[in-house]
């Protein structure tokens, strides 16, 4: 424990180097811009800017990229409140009460509440990461292939159980991701598969291309379809409003705490920030004594989703750094970055790359604090970006996506694939297929497959290896429960209503 605190302070020393501080500011500003612009989100924003970090040291690179992520989390709230346009899916719930508040001329109050609760949520999650991640990592060091596979299994099953989309659509898009990930060279036997002689498919589909296409191009197409025009309130944040709102916020500590817990829980399981924000909003609405007024501009309705979204977004990094299993598409992109910089994600990071891990954790503290200050002072500037017409922004985003896709492997074929993924993403999104499991499956496909085949090799093909000891059986069983959760839930409600009916 004490050793970890020492490590953390060492991390702060790494982050406090002037170059790293500069990268932090650059990262947050870029991140907020990415969060504000439609079509650029946390995941593809980080993916596009990943090549910029190729020449940096891994620690500086992760500081900049994670700050882009924090910035994007903050940025989503600005457009939700001022323009009623969620810049990010996780800020949809913020529009419900944030935009009415802005219409009533309380935009400053809503923004302050949103940014501050984002900060509180993130802080809660970072403290949790500081305390828990080293323990999880040291525990996970003892994992064999079967245990590793069971963790992947649990992560993917949670998608099926927790996502709002129909379960079979989740399975279809997840398995499609695994399939795409399998194309190319087989890691175990060194054989080519599913390439059908096409030279371009030798290395398979890179998930960064998929992220840029599915989330970037796909989102632009969706925005084009809606024929977006921005109409929003003009705002300035003056210090009086900020301090007045801060004085008011402690009254809602219960909402905050509850949302933090929901967020952290949903962030660690791969459900992610979006469901966390909706769930937190829903529960706050049900419990609050002002619940019936939700949707008309209640400050609690801004606090709840923002706290949960930020807590979830931050907590998603816990499984990424301690187990090598990303909790969200953005965490997956960061994980892809680790591989490019030559680091092996997973529990070994904590023993072999202390500077890197603790630098990252320290940058989470500093980055969120700095992010809060930057967004509070620069809101009008960021809001002005949305006044740039879409006919200018759209081609610039397309160009950025193309550059991002090209630089992954210096390959123009990847740019073509990006467009294909983009069109596919448009159709999948409109038909309610979740994209996050698809992307995570492409990232983790090789590793999950390797773990699966190694376990089977050890057991000579028997599936019993996944129930061979207490640990692996528990994780696998939890996974199965998560997988069949929709059915269990339906059965449970039927059972209950069946019991209740005779009594009525």
């Amino acid at each position: 424990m004490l050793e970890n605190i020492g490590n953390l302070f060492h991390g702060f020393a790494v982050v406090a180097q002037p170059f790293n501080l500069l990268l932090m500011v650059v990262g947050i500003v870029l991140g907020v811009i990415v969060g504000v612009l439609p079509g650029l989100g946390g995941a593809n924003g980080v993916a596009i800017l990943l090549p910029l970090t190729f020449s940096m040291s891994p620690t500086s690179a992760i500081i900049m990229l994670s700050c882009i992520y924090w910035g994007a989390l903050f940025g989503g709230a600005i457009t939700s409140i001022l323009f009623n346009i969620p810049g990010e899916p996780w800020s949809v719930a913020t529009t419900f009460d944030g935009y009415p508040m802005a219409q009533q001329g309380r935009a400053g109050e809503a923004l302050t509440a949103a940014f501050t609760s984002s900060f509180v949520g993130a802080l809660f999650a970072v403290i949790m990461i500081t305390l828990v991640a080293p323990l999880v990592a040291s525990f996970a060091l003892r994992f064999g292939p079967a245990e590793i596979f069971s963790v992947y299994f649990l992560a993917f099953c949670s998608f099926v159980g927790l996502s709002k989309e129909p379960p079979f659509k989740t399975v279809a898009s997840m398995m499609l991701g695994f399939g795409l990930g399998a194309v190319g060279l087989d890691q175990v036997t060194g054989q080519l598969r599913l390439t059908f002689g096409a030279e371009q498919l030798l290395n398979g589909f890179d998930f960064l291309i998929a992220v840029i296409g599915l989330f970037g191009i796909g989102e632009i197409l969706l925005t084009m379809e809606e024929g977006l025009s921005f109409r929003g309130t003009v705002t300035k944040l003056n210090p009086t409003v900020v301090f007045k709102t801060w004085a008011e916020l402690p009254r809602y500590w219960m909402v905050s705490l509850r949302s933090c817990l929901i967020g952290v829980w949903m962030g660690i399981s791969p459900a992610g920030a979006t469901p966390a924000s909706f769930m937190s909003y829903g529960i706050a609405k049900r419990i609050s004594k002002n619940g019936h007024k939700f949707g008309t501009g209640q400050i609690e309705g801004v606090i709840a989703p923002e706290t949960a979204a930020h807590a979830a977004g931050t907590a998603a990094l816990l499984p990424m750094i301690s187990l090598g299993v990303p909790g969200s598409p953005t965490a997956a992109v960061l994980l892809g970055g680790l591989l490019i910089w030559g680091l092996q994600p997973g529990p070994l990071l904590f023993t072999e790359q202390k500077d890197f891990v603790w630098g990252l954790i320290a940058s989470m503290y500093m980055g969120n604090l700095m992010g809060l200050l930057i967004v509070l002072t620069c809101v009008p500037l960021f809001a002005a970006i949305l006044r740039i017409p879409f006919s200018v922004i759209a081609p610039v985003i397309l160009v950025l996506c193309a550059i991002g896709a090209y630089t992954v492997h210096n390959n123009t074929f990847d740019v073509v694939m990006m467009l294909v993924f983009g069109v596919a993403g448009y159709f999948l999104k409109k038909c309610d297929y979740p994209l996050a499991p698809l992307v995570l499956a492409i990232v983790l496909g090789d590793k999950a497959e390797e773990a699966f085949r190694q376990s089977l090799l050890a057991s000579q093909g028997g599936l019993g290896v996944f129930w061979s000891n207490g640990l692996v059986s528990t994780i696998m069983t939890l996974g199965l429960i998560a997988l069949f959760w929709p059915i269990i839930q339906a059965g449970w409600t039927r059972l209950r209503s069946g019991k209740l009916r005779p009594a009525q």
Partner: protein
Amino acid sequence: MNQTIKESGGTGPSHRNVEIGVAAFMALLAFIGIYGSIKVGIGWGAEGPLAGFFPFYVSLAVLISCAVNLTKIIKSPADGELFADWGQLRQVTSVVIPTAIYVALIPYIGIYVSSALLIALFMKWLGKYSWVVVIGISVLVPVLTFLMFEMWFLVPLPKGPLEVMLGY
């Protein structure tokens, strides 16, 4: 995500048909996956499971889920909900087609020149800006990217005849 109710009087492809198309396309990919896996072997070899083992079952799972999704759509009554009306789809294609041409041009004339053309096209065609503004921005953005990527971060991007002429 958020199901917005379209207040449209327009016509367009029905949501149901598009959904059937998407599921059918995924099933097609699944068949390709199964075929490819069988070609490299899905059984058990000297080093354990063969290369096609994992992709085979994964493709099978895609196929089964597509079958379930398809039956669900076909069984559901046609509710007349639109996927998007033709006007909206025209908007979407007005992005896809120029982008496709842009992507195709990159290997030949480089990313900077083609980016300038793409931005100029969008601004003139969809934004109806005056030529001065169009040329200003469509030249400025590639120049900025050039400075940022090639100069500052030392990441080379595809270049064409123009850059060669300028000596890069």
